[in-house]
């Protein structure tokens, strides 16, 4: 009787009191929760070409306490994993309960390792981010870390869109850990990341990078950037930077190679900034393109500061349009004096100086602008000719895009749309636009800038047969970051312009900036690169010279 009571009590305890705990413990032995990683979204160029995608990979791991013979195991794994035997043996013979032997290897390697059936060695499913075009647009695309998180560039900026949401599956397993078919199974499927469609055009991007590389090599420059913009939509068609790196092996690169200089680095623009001075002066009505100015070759603005033109000349009386075409410092400062400091500073701010352009890219530099209240005697002259102010290449390209777009500034963008996990494409909302100068000012300025590439201008090397080109050369000194003043002999050469000038809204803006080239002049080193990139861009866009029809089947790059 006593025995019966004891057994009954135990049964009640097991079946009633502890039933839920025991059931959970039993389920814990049989059931296994496996995370189902979400596939990371792809990055496309504007024509649907893969710029970044994730592929299957395997990760080989070991549980050293379960490894019977570390040396022998290492000897069998070394040729497959292409890792030294000693290194593998050290990992396999260590005290750690779990170590990675090789991460993100090709699936075929993982399958070979699995076939060896080595005690204490296992293979996990994984994925690997790959950039099929290697260095192409590397600084723009960025890269992802070992755990698949975006660490730089668009990969970082659009992380929330690209990464998706991981799922899980709860499955019943046998004592050896193998899933039991028809066993209990509950699946929460992962939601893959969305695909991002950029505004970049891969062939144009390659052309820009190729032309930049040749220019840097030919002129022994430290580096450089090229930005190609579509004025009407603000879309970045190409963004090239040198030095560059291969995101497939970003760990082997230096930080300087990974920087998207066109967006995160500021430089003193020099004469390309005269476009803003000219725009402000035309808009304020202090000059017209035909206003004649008396221009000496030097001008004392302050007691201890004299500004010079690039070449010596006598007193000239030339129209304002020639002042810009010949890039006269003195003439530009004379116009800035008529304009006044406040209006000049306001124009620079209106064109976006001193604040980020708003492009969808992390770490954008706003540039450096001295508030007009703190301007000293020389600052009016210095700012008028583009020294003493720092901007990014993208900001400068945006200034010229504004002129090309009839005076309306459109925020630049790098992504045009998104493909959701169900394959539906949707455009991103258009970026904001605002008017900076009047249509007439933009038109007058465009006409003035076309004079720069004509006979007598500083940018004749930028001329493209059959097209009207508008632009401006720049040759600016490089500030010394260690002490005040400029680095002797160091210059940044640039040419920024747009074509076709007579249909500027439909054309392209190309900004070419070379860091410390030899020779130093933008008209000599940057203008030819502009011509090369701009003519290719117009070919991509199907823009025939005026009076010619676009050949059938050409120009799908927009």
């Amino acid at each position, binding site marked *: 009787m006593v025995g019966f009571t004891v057994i009954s009590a135990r049964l009640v305890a097991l079946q009633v009191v502890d039933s839920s705990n025991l059931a959970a413990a039993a389920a814990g032995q049989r059931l296994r929760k496996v995370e189902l990683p979400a596939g990371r979204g792809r990055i496309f160029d504007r024509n649907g070409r893969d710029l970044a*995608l994730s592929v299957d990979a395997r990760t080989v791991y070991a549980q050293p306490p379960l490894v019977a013979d570390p040396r022998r195991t290492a000897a069998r794994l070394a040729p497959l994993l292409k890792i030294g035997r000693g290194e593998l043996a050290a990992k396999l013979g260590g005290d750690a309960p779990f170590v990675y032997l090789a991460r993100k290897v090709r699936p075929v390697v993982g399958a070979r390792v699995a076939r060896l059936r080595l005690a204490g060695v296992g293979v996990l499913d994984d994925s690997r981010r790959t950039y099929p075009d290697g260095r192409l647009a590397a600084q723009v695309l960025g890269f992802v870390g070992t755990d698949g998180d975006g660490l730089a560039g668009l990969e970082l900026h659009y992380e929330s869109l690209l990464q998706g949401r991981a799922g899980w599956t709860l499955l019943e397993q046998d004592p050896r850990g193998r899933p039991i078919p028809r066993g209990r199974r509950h699946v929460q499927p992962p939601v893959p990341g969305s695909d991002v469609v950029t505004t970049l055009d891969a062939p144009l991007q390659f052309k820009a990078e190729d032309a930049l590389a040749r220019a840097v090599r030919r002129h022994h420059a430290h580096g450089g950037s090229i930005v190609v913009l579509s004025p009407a939509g603000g879309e970045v068609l190409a963004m090239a930077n040198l030095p560059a790196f291969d995101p497939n092996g970003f760990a082997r690169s230096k930080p300087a190679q990974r920087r998207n200089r066109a967006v995160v680095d500021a430089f003193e623009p020099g004469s390309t900034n005269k476009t803003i001075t000219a725009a402000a002066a035309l808009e304020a009505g202090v000059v017209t393109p035909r206003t004649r100015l008396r221009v000496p070759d030097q001008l004392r603005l302050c007691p201890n500061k004299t500004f010079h033109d690039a070449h010596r000349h006598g007193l000239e009386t030339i129209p304002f349009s020639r002042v810009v075409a010949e890039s006269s410092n003195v003439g530009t400062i004379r116009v800035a004096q008529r304009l006044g400091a406040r209006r000049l500073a306001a124009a620079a701010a209106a064109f976006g100086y001193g604040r980020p352009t708003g492009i969808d890219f992390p770490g954008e530099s706003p540039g450096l602008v001295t508030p007009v209240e703190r301007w000293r005697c020389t600052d009016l002259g210095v700012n008028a000719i583009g020294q003493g102010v720092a901007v990014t290449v993208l900001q400068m390209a945006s200034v010229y895009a504004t002129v090309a777009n009839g005076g309306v500034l459109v925020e630049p963008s790098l992504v045009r749309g998104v493909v959701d996990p169900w394959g539906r494409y949707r455009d991103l909302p258009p970026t904001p636009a605002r008017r900076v100068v009047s249509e007439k000012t933009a038109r007058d300025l465009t006409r003035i800038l076309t004079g720069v590439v004509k006979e007598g201008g500083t940018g004749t090397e930028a001329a493209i047969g059959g097209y009207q080109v508008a632009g401006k050369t720049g040759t600016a000194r490089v500030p010394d970051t260690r002490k005040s003043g400029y680095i002797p002999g160091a210059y940044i050469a640039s040419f920024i312009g747009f074509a076709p000038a007579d249909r500027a809204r439909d054309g392209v803006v190309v900004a070419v900036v070379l860091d410390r080239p030899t020779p130093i002049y933008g008209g000599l080193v940057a203008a030819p690169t502009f011509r090369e990139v701009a003519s290719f861009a117009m070919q991509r866009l199907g823009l025939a010279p005026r009076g010619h029809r676009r050949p059938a089947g050409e120009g799908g790059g927009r």
Partner: protein
Amino acid sequence: MTQAASHAPPRPARAPRAEPQHRLRVIRAPRAGSRLPFLALAGLVVVVGVLGLAALTVAVNQQAFAIARLEQQTRDSAGRYTVLQADVDRLRSPARLSQVARERGLGAATPARFQRWPSARDATTPAAARDGTASQAAPTAAPSPAAAGAPTAADAGRVWTPDDPFPLKQYLAQP
């Protein structure tokens, strides 16, 4: 008949019924041996049922294994597809194509040239750009259909001139 019956003398009172006699007979006791076929049949049914159930379960599980194997194959194939796609993308990357072209002795393409038609003037020379108007550009040495072939006496009357707005005539003028 009816009349005769009505005249029939009354029946005498019925004599009391005798108690029914139960007809009991001796039957043989059932023999155990007669259940054997039934038991055998029942056993057979049970065995066949169990075996059938087991076979069915095995068959279903085999299908489950096959499904699991096919699912794995699908995943592997999808993975292989993305790997191959990445390979295709890599092989057709502009940088690689450019390198292969250089290795095979191909030069960089010159910028596209546009010919003004029918004047056969090259619209893509720097001179044209400097002038700002392509129509005033100087003709180039580049051959064009419009410039090819000098007129002969035989062509008199159908010789094409730059002022002629009908370019097809130039085609007709060619041999």
